[in-house]
């Protein structure tokens, strides 16, 4: 049984990679039928994921599958690769496989005719592979490996239309921003490894429980925050959220898959996985980050006109919710929201894709290349033209706005209850958390309905365009319908309850409360959430209703002129701040990126023009000068005077002694005789 499960997990992991490999190497030959390869393999993956999901319901102790093999070892430093499938992972696997499959299906139509059609499916394959890797990983190292691979596939997919400068910039920005977070994660991993001695998730949890950090919980807090940095990058939390809106430069199905449902959820999933070792201090930090993100992104989303950007900021905001939920200890709620959000946000993105697709084709037929097909101001009145898209999108919008009977209500409600309970137990400044939660909920309801009304209601912007709009084909609408169905509350509560406001369905059974080994009393948290439940529900209903009501006033009935309000708000620069995303990009650009590039330019000048050319070559110069001098001394003095002096002396004597060699034999004889005389004198032989 174990080995069969192992094999299945392996298949689940590697089938998408096989799809990638086939399409990358034989993509040219396969061409237009690339999607068949991808669909088949992802389909099998989906079936396997469903199988794992089904095991969630069979009663079991501990994880469904836990196995690992040694990756490599140097003796005492050993890394393992392995699977750890528990209920959370099994659910996540299904979410990934399902949305991936639907996006594949959707893309068949959406990407038709693209010159790099097969490449697109290959990239989807490697993304699914990497994402599955994160889900299955049983150690932080393996998670980090796939974490980065997800970053790569995201890079490739955002930059899929790399001929556009904006896409090329966006993919780089996404990768680099993610890397910032990854550095933190890497350092956190190292701290954990050298304190506990392992990278394994269960090993870390056990180690913390056994007191590896006892007496040094501060370090564990820091480690937790550092590892969370990875999630900040990947899940687009403040202050690293800037990449996600730009990532909308990728094809819309990709946005649905990666930048709404799965990859950005990986950060949340990672926090879920390491939840047992997060200290209350780290969780507090996490909650604050999540709250700031949720509120700020929601405020930005109000003023955006690009349909995908609105959705992107709404994604950031919702991710903030999830992170905040985990931070306040509402572990279940956070993961629940991840799941529900994956469904309705994927649906929203695919719907927007359907709209954009229709707009694009309409504009194309009109040979209009100046109008932005993504700008909501050019839409309007599409309800009649695109009924399926409209209804799907409406359902998903209701879900995200937190309206009862829809899934978002259940999960968001639980999160808000968590924040309230957190305030109840901590008091003081923590009131910010529920305030941010409810505020963001109201704003979310407002801007989501703004989106619906601007797109589908009212008068068309231009009749000409409107006339050319058609409903998308079935390959695109089928995923929409399916995902909108999955946005219904009943899907998550059946068969335990049919009460639309009671979230205690199969999901809460499947994802029981975990123990926090780092000092958070989960029972107390659960208790608190339970108590705050009804207050939160009531409040959330009120704020959601308020948001929808204002939106109706503004955009459907147009009782209030939005532009007046915005210009009024702009007296305090509120509108500009929101529209320009709090100027965070500009601030980064101005305070970090530009100065850094300048710094690197200065560094290169220092290194080359100053250090090398002046200092190092200066030595050369000094040496040359010295050698000039010494050469001078050497030649003019040593060589010319002393060495040549000897030569000259010899020459002089030679010239003069030459005269003795005059060929006159008698002179030689005379010399010989004198020599004899000399010798005799010397030796005194007499």
């Amino acid at each position, binding site marked *: 049984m174990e080995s069969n499960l192992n094999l299945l997990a392996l298949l689940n992991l590697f089938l998408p990679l096989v799809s990638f490999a086939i399409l990358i190497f034989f993509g040219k030959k396969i061409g237009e039928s690339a999607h068949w390869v991808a669909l088949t393999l992802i389909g099998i993956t989906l079936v396997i994921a469903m199988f794992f999901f089904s095991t969630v319901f069979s009663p079991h102790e501990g994880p469904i599958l836990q196995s690992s093999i040694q990756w*490599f070892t140097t003796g005492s430093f050993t890394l393992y690769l392995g699977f750890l499938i528990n209920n959370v992972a099994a659910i996540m696997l299904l979410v990934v496989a399902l949305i991936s499959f639907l996006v594949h299906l959707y893309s068949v139509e959406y990407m038709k005719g693209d010159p790099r059609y097969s490449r697109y499916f290959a990239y989807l394959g490697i993304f699914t592979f990497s994402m599955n890797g994160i889900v299955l990983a049983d150690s932080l190292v393996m998670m980090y490996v796939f974490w980065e691979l997800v970053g790569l596939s995201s890079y490739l997919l955002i930059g899929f239309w*790399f001929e556009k*400068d904006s896409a090329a910039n966006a*993919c780089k920005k996404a990768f680099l921003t993610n890397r910032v977070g990854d*550095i933190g994660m890497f350092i956190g991993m190292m701290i954990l490894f*050298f304190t506990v001695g392992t990278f394994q998730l269960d090993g870390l949890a056990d180690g913390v429980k056994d007191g590896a950090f006892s007496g040094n919980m501060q370090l564990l807090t820091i480690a937790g925050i550092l590892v969370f940095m990875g999630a900040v990058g990947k899940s687009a939390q403040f202050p690293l959220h800037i990449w996600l809106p730009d990532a909308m430069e990728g094809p819309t199905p990709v946005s649905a898959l990666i930048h709404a449902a799965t990859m950005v959820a990986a950060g949340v999933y990672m926090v879920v996985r390491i939840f047992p070792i997060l200290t209350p201090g780290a969780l507090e930090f996490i909650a604050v980050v999540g709250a700031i993100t949720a509120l700020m992104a929601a405020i930005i989303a109000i003023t955006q006109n690009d349909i995908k950007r609105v959705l992107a900021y709404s994604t950031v905001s919702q991710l903030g919710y999830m992170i905040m939920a985990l931070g306040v200890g509402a572990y279940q709620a956070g993961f629940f929201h991840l799941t529900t959000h994956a469904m309705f946000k994927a649906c929203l993105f695919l719907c927007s894709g359907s709209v954009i697709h229709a707009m694009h084709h309409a504009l194309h037929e009109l040979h209009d290349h100046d109008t932005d097909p993504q700008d909501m101001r050019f839409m309007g009145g599409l309800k009649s033209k695109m009924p399926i898209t409209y209804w799907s999108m409406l359902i998903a919008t209701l879900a995200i706005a937190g309206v009862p009977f829809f899934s978002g209500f259940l999960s968001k409600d639980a999160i808000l209850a968590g924040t309230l309970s957190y305030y109840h137990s901590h008091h003081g400044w923590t009131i910010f958390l529920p305030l941010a939660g409810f505020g963001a909920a109201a704003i979310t309801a407002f801007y989501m309905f703004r989106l619906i009304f601007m797109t589908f209601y009212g008068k068309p912007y231009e009749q000409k365009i409107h006339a050319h709009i058609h409903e998308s084909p079935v390959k695109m609408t089928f995923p929409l319908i399916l995902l909108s169905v999955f946005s219904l509350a009943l899907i998550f509560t059946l068969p335990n309850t049919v009460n639309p406001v009671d979230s205690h369905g199969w999901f809460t059974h499947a994802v029981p409360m975990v123990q926090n080994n780092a000092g958070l009393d989960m029972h107390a948290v659960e208790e608190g959430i339970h108590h705050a439940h009804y207050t939160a529900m009531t409040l959330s209903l009120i704020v959601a209703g308020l948001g929808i009501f204002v939106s109706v006033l503004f955009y459907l009935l147009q009782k209030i002129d939005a532009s007046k309000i915005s210009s009024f708000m702009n007296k305090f620069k509120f509108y500009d701040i929101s529209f320009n995303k709090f100027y965070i990009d500009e601030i980064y650009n101005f305070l970090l990126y530009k100065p850094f590039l300048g710094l*690197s330019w200065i*560094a290169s000048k220092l290194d080359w023009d100053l250090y090398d050319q002046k200092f190092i070559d200066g030595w050369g110069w000094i040496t040359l000068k010295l050698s000039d001098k010494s050469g001078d001394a050497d030649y003019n003095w040593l060589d010319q005077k002393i060495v040549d002096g000897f030569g000259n002396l010899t020459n002089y004597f030679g010239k003069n002694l030459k005269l003795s060699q005059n060929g006159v034999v008698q002179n030689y004889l005379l010399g010989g005789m004198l020599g004899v005389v000399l010798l005799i004198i010397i030796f005194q032989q007499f």
Partner: protein
Amino acid sequence: MESSILTFLIFLPVAGAALMLPFSKLYGKENTHYFKWIALITTGIQFALALILYRKFDPALSVTESPFTVQIDWIKHFNIQYFLGVDGLSMPMVLLTALLSFICILASWKIEKQALGYFSLFLLLDAGMMGVFLALDFFLFYVFWEVMLLPMYFLIGIWGGPQRMYAAIKFFLYTLFGSVFMLLAMLALYYYSDPHTFNLITLIQTASSIDASIWGFSVKYLIWIGLFIGFAIKVPIFPFHTWLPLAHVEAPTAISVILAGVLLKMGTYGLLRISYPLLPGEVVNFSYILAVLGVINIIWGAVNAIAQIDMKKMVAYSSVSHMGYVLLGMAAAISESSAGAQAGMNGAVMQMFNHGTITAMLFLLVGMVYDRAHHRWIIFPRDYEKPELAGQPGFGGIGAQVPIYTGFVALAFFAGLGLPALSGFISEAMCFIGGFSAFRTLTIIGTLGILLNAIYFLRAYQRIFLGPLNETYKDLTDINKIELATIVPLAIITLVLGVYPAPLLNMIAPAMDGIIQIVQSAL
């Protein structure tokens, strides 16, 4: 057979170079394909021998037990021996040298200018490199070290770019400067050890008992400094690094590959082979500085690479950065945690090998685009010779034009920035993990390199391959068969070692254990 294989590895290229002479006499110097084929076959056989060696190599055996070891008296009077041996430290380097030499001959296939000289010098260089990695006698080591210098000087100086003479002289002087210190250290080791010997295995025992001082400095300390300067220049360790960008930029493609792929490794190899086992006490005292220099290398190299607008210069600075990882990993040998020490040391040697393959790919790829476009500016400099191009992007959007080439560049760039599943990641991560166990703060600063490396690689990738196609290059041709043959083996190695590094690690680990033990015993 077994004991002569090392000798063959070294002297086969010399024989190949000698064989070229009769051919040049018989067929004339113009028939360059004879020389090319001789060089190719020679390096091919050498590579095959290296593979055979790898097959038979048993990492568990120490050098003294290994059947490959050759130990013959050379200059008996001074106790100098012809002493060759192979262990887990040198084995990856031998494989790397043989592989890169073979590939570089292929990459030099277009060389027509004085081909006889080029290929024979190249083979001599090959022999020198092989000798450095196999020699276990310090004197022999030094001889090979210097043997390799001269062909390099000519290869840069004759076949290089516009500033080739300047670059060649700079390279030569820098390296010679280091060699002098190394020579002094070598002689000091010889005279202060008892009995006088150059034998590196014997010196492990005797060198540590040196107990003398000159001018108030301990001799061991001075020897360490001398060796360190000699090796640091080769690595190159900041602040001795500035020969590298220039030499890499000016050298022909294949020589850049050898420079970055093999020559840089000699510095760290020398440290691990000589400084570490012989002077463990000094290693302990010095490791903090080593780690600091490693981190400086990582950051400084990367920061400089970001500002570069010449592709080759960027890759050259990336080498500076990547060699920093090696230093950081090596410094971890003193770590109290045995896992940390092992991770660091093994990571360092792996990084040496991996950087050799990755940077070779990078230089080969830059060379390919240079062959086609005749420039390699990411952005034309402001004082470019054609004023209408100054400040303009050099390429742009050629990703769609040359997809296969782009794919390989992406692979190489991502390997360079340490993407998991490519070999660079594992070794870099291990260096960091090792470094972290010994020097926390430093390593945390060093991890910035993860980001900085990504910045320049991705910026360059975007500027060259992404965005709208630059119309100048709409006829750019994709990679050809010979180029494919040079790049594919490296790409495969990068991928395989990224996924399954165990074969490399198993080879290295026992040797590193020995070095760690020596160093730890001096703690």
